[in-house]
């Protein structure tokens, strides 16, 4: 089981990093989601892998599993869920406003200067 959990985390991270390095917003978001899944699985495993053990005190328990990683992973899931929702909205708004879903900032310099106004740097001075 250790091998399974470890390789699952590894594969999730690899997929996440690969998608993160793509040039368009949708693969990047999916990559971020994969990375946060990997973090969640990893956090589960930090309290050691234990099966069929209760996390709270019970009189007839033979042993316990660490409850703290479950609390940590719950917090992490909530935060990454909210963040994913935010970045999806952000990507959509960006796509609708600029007409492109590229991640890079190549167009930034053009976009920063209002298009309709003259550019005195190029010599077109308003009369």
């Amino acid at each position, binding site marked *: 089981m250790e091998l399974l959990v470890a390789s699952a985390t590894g594969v999730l991270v690899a997929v996440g990093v690969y998608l*993160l390095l793509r040039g368009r917003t949708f693969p990047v978001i999916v990559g971020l989601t994969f990375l946060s899944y990997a973090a969640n699985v990893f956090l589960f495993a930090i309290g050691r892998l234990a099966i069929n053990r209760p996390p709270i005190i019970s009189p007839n328990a033979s042993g316990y599993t660490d409850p703290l990683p479950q609390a*940590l992973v719950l917090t992490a899931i909530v935060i*990454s869920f909210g963040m994913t929702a935010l*970045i999806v909205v952000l990507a959509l*708004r960006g796509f609708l*406003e600029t007409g492109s879903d590229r991640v890079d900032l190549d*167009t*930034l310099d053009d*976009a920063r200067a209002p298009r309709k106004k003259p550019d005195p740097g190029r010599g077109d001075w308003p009369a």
Partner: protein
Amino acid sequence: MSNLIVVPTVLPAMTAALLILALRHDLARQRIASVAATAALLAITIGLFMLASDGQPRAYLLGNWPAPFGIVLVLDGLSATMLVLTSALAFLILPYAIKGWDAQGRHFHALFQFQLLGINGAFLTGDLFNLFVFFEVMLIASYGLMLHGGGAPRLKAGFQYVAINLVASTLFLFAVGLIYAVTGTLNMADLAGKVAQIAAGDQALLKSGALMLLIVFAIKAALVPLHWWLPATYAATSAPSAALFMIMTKVGAYSILRVYALIFGAEAGALAQLANPWIPPAAIVTLVFGSVGMLASRTLRDLVCFWVVASMGTLLIALGTFDLPGVTAALYYLIHSTLTGAALFLLADLVAERRAQWLDRLIPAPEIQRATLIGGLFFLAAIAAVGMPPLSGFIGKLMVLEALRGAPGWPLIWFAILGTSLLMIVGFAHAGSTLFWKSRDANKIVEESDRRSFLPIVVVALLLAGTAGLSVAAGPATRSLEGIARQALDPNPYVRAVLGTDARVRAAGR
């Protein structure tokens, strides 16, 4: 009295809730509530600073759960200083935002308060996982503030900013997980005692966790090669947000100092001084990179952004020594660079709004209104930023140079700091002379009188007065900061305040 420690997190949270729930549609009342809450926060943080000035760290146990199990907030000189700096900066920036920026989108004041909640929490928390949570609170609010006002370039830069911070958060989780897996605790005081006791087989895991944490903090502190998000983000956001974000890079520097002096400090056994080999070289490259970037900037805003990168380099060169003179100099430079950077961002905005379509681009344009006043303020801010006498930048850089004398490779570091100062002078001189002296067409002075409010200029003047005050009161300030640095570098009082016992006593008892 020590119940006051929780107020810097509770007050902004309650204010933000009030702003969203009760005052959503009433901008005028939002402004009153926001200013009043920030003024109260400033008063309370000053009170906390007085409380902490006796050199005794204090712990606040939430719900009165005993320390390694419950959530704990810790107030010591370092966190109190950062709290005062944050609330003072927020209090000064808020009037600037009220001049009109806050009306360009919704919920500016609520986001502003949430941002203060996250920053204050990050400075107060004594627990690594809570540091993660407060980082997230701070970042979520900063996404909102960064995108405030909207517009295509801001959205584009915002996506990158959010994406890089999500990756950093994921790394933070992996690092925290590794540290918990090995030590079984995330309480910083508890970790300080346990790290030295780790079995040899687990040291590699703990070390990877600790260094991953350093990557996360380096992203926040804009350390090369993890700095590239900063110029794009800060240049695209609104001026008050950029000015407030000046404190966010400092959160990264604070976290580096807190974690690597307290947990992985001199007494951490095999993992002692873990960050020491990594920070100074990266900081020197950061300084050089930022200064060269200043020469390549085409707008005043970009110039200031690259100056922020360079100033983080200077700060971390001093901080990376982790000794008393170095950390004292770093704290002094931290306060100076926060105030100066905020003033520069607001000045860039003042210039841009007066230059019509030329904005803050470094090309000749018709002379701006109130050119003498704004130009004079820019001159003062540039002097402070570059590190020329008499303002605090000069004293800060002098302290950094003095602290590094005798450190390994100090001639190189001195050369880097002094050489980049020259590059900064060239950058600021070019920007200032283009913006204020090279009028493209002398007859084209815009006729209409400047009906804009005087308040934003007063805000900038007050920020600069802060750096002037810091240089006038340099003697008492450095003495006070030296005490704070000594306290920050000594884990034992901190551990005693949180756990009730000495780190070494605890370690020996195991």
